[in-house]
């Protein structure tokens, strides 16, 4: 081969080496690295960088060797004009156009070769040494075009993939949230079912317990009354304890039954005359009220509200009974029932001047079987206020108490007006 032939073969071999780097990977950075690294090694370059346009005047670096710090940067729009004649331009640092590209890297290069790859990207090559030159880059124009075209295709493909992956991600999140919601619903349903089952179980159990308890009570009484047995005082005392305990248990079972019944039964809303309802409650409690000389005051009560009459009656019955039960011995009981009306609900209050309670106990009292006072002084099942809470909840309301120890309590509850 003569020298010319040798040069041609060398150029072809060099082009072949570079050309093979395009499309080695479908990863943008891997593809850029492979191409730029080979180009740098072969052409003894100090810098190689591929940039793409974010818009017509803003560039962002996709990949460079060596690494440079470069975010998206706006360029001088004039600089595009320098490509008017050729896609490949060679600049040294004495050219005024050099400054258009100098801002792309952290270092200064003595010469730059800039190739415009269509409308979307540029390829910038740099040489550090004044002695070096870009001798055969013109031969690479087609290879650069192919590289830029491939990179632009990868970028747009990745952009589409990115958008699809964002949508997929969103769909996955929605699906995940739905699954979580379904799971929570299922748990709630199980909880409601188990609660219902528990209430049914409590009702049946309480009901079944009543019969043997009745037998126990009856036979204890019979035993005490049977004179033939000549029971001693202490034996009779024991029988009384058994009978009292039986009665306490009977109360508890009644409470459970009542609580279960109220939970199990549906709310049947109707127009309820509150004045009339309270009169009925007072009648039911007549013995209690009169024996302790209690005074019941009623203020600002509505004529009627929407609710379940039976349940509301039970609600007032329980609250007034409690007020009578937990009275103070040194004052006559005064119970004041009032109501304030808003657009959405009625706010009732039942105020007494009884023994009251400590503020820290005001939450406990609405729990089942929670009792603050000893059985010795105040009989009861500890279910009454739990039943009240259930009734209020069934009427879409809230119940709470405001109380001062030794001064009295005010029970507040709301009933939805709809």
């Amino acid at each position, binding site marked *: 081969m003569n020298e010319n032939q040798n040069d041609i*073969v060398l150029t072809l071999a060099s082009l072949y080496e570079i050309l093979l780097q395009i499309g080695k990977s479908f990863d943008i950075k891997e593809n850029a690295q492979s191409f730029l690294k080979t180009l740098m*090694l072969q052409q*003894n370059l100090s810098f190689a960088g591929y940039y793409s346009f974010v818009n017509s005047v803003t560039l962002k670096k996709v990949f460079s060797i060596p*690494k440079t710090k470069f975010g998206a940067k706006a360029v001088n729009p004039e600089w595009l004009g320098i490509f008017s004649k050729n896609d490949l331009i060679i600049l040294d640092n004495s050219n005024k156009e050099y400054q258009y590209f100098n801002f792309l890297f952290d270092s200064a290069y003595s010469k730059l070769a800039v190739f415009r790859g269509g409308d979307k990207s540029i390829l910038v090559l740099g040489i550090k040494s004044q002695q070096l030159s870009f001798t055969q880059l013109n031969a690479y124009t087609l290879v650069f075009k192919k590289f830029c075209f491939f990179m632009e295709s990868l970028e747009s493909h990745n952009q589409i993939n990115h958008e699809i992956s964002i949508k997929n991600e969103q769909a996955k999140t929605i699906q995940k949230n739905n699954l979580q919601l379904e799971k929570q619903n299922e748990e709630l349903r199980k909880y409601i079912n188990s609660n219902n089952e528990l209430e049914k179980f409590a009702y049946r159990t309480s009901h079944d317990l009543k019969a043997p308890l009745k037998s126990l009570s009856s036979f204890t009484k019979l035993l005490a009354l049977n004179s033939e047995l000549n029971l001693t005082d202490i034996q009779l005392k024991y029988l009384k304890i058994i009978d009292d305990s039986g009665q306490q248990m009977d109360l508890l079972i009644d409470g459970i039954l009542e609580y279960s019944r109220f939970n199990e039964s549906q709310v049947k809303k109707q127009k309820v005359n509150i004045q009339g309802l309270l009169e009925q409650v007072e009648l039911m409690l007549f013995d209690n009220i009169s024996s302790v000389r209690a005074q019941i005051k009623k203020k600002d009560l509505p004529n009627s509200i929407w609710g379940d009459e039976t349940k509301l009656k039970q609600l007032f019955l329980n609250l007034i009974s409690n007020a009578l039960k937990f009275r103070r011995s040194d004052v006559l009981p005064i119970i004041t029932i009032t109501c304030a009306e808003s657009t959405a609900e009625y706010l009732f209050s039942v105020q007494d001047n009884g023994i009251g309670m400590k503020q820290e106990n005001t939450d406990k009292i609405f729990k089942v079987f929670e009792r603050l006072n000893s059985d010795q002084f105040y009989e009861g099942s500890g279910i009454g206020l739990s039943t009240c809470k259930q009734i209020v909840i069934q009427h879409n309301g809230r119940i709470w108490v405001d109380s001062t120890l030794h001064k009295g309590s005010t029970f507040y509850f709301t009933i939805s007006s709809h």
Partner: protein
Amino acid sequence: MIISHISEANILGKIKEYNKIVYSDFIILCGEEAYIDYHLLIALLNKEKIKFCGGIFPKVIYNNECFKDKVLLLPVNFEQEPTLVSGLDDGEIQIPSSLKSINSNSLFILNDGLSNWISKFVFRLYDEIGSDHHVFGSGAGFSSFKRENCLFTHEGFFMDAAIVVPIKNQNVQSTRHGWNPIAGPYIATKTSANLLQEINWKPAYVICKSIIEEQENVEIGTDNYYKYAKKYPFGIYRSNSEYLIRDPVSSEDDLSIKFGAEIPSNSVLYLMKSNIQDMLDAGKIACEDVFAKSDHPLFMFVADCISRTWILNDRFNEELNNIYQIAEQRNIPVYGVFSMGEISSSNGGLLDYHHKTIVASIVEIDE
């Protein structure tokens, strides 16, 4: 400074003596027959809080002589502690963050010259530190090619690694080899790291063998392949620059050729040859060239490839004399090593890893 009477305590003593005159950090270059307990030396230097790094080489060069049983102390000022880079055995090279933001633009590198991924390391380093640095360095190791620890820092004694030291002293370099193409261009159509399997889609060994046989007028077999092949390295084509020389090490059973460093896939290759005079001239030109670039030389450092010394053989003294004469005119000492590969940024472009090449560097006075 050269140390002839080798003991760990004597090396420490010489360092302390030097530091009484002017405080310095040290690059310690040891001949492979200096027989030092390196763990002890490291412990002694650490105890005295001396900053250092070093390597073991087939021989060290001092002025116009070379020694396999002596130690050189190169006084320089470190910009920061020497940094160890590992992963040169498996290619999993991570450049430590301490090297990504260095203040000095002057770097010295020592690497295990028999590691598999030296070119990759050099390129990765360039990618991270950028093009503003002047870098010189050398591959360490033993003339028997035995794989042993050959690098040391305050952290220990290592192999399959590189030590990078940013130094305050500026440096300039010049690189020459004197090899010329005799056949090519070829395309490295099948390679695998250090293995050149095919050129122009034919077994690499078959093509090389036929050219060498023609040149040497002998029959080449696996038994005598290296004897002749060492005079016929490959040159990777570089536009605007010298060919990057790659030294063949052995032929393999699958008719591929193993090299001392990676051959890039599809790279353009030439088979190279040299003669003694061209090689000697190359050494001389490199030294003259580097002095032309230097303003305030402190000392000259020469990384002369061990395979060059094997080829120059009896005439290697001429190379040493040539170098020394040039340095003597400027009244500065010559330090150097028989290197297992050379690193330089002297071609004005990328950081390169060379074979069968001489890299002459001038380390400037730290002002």
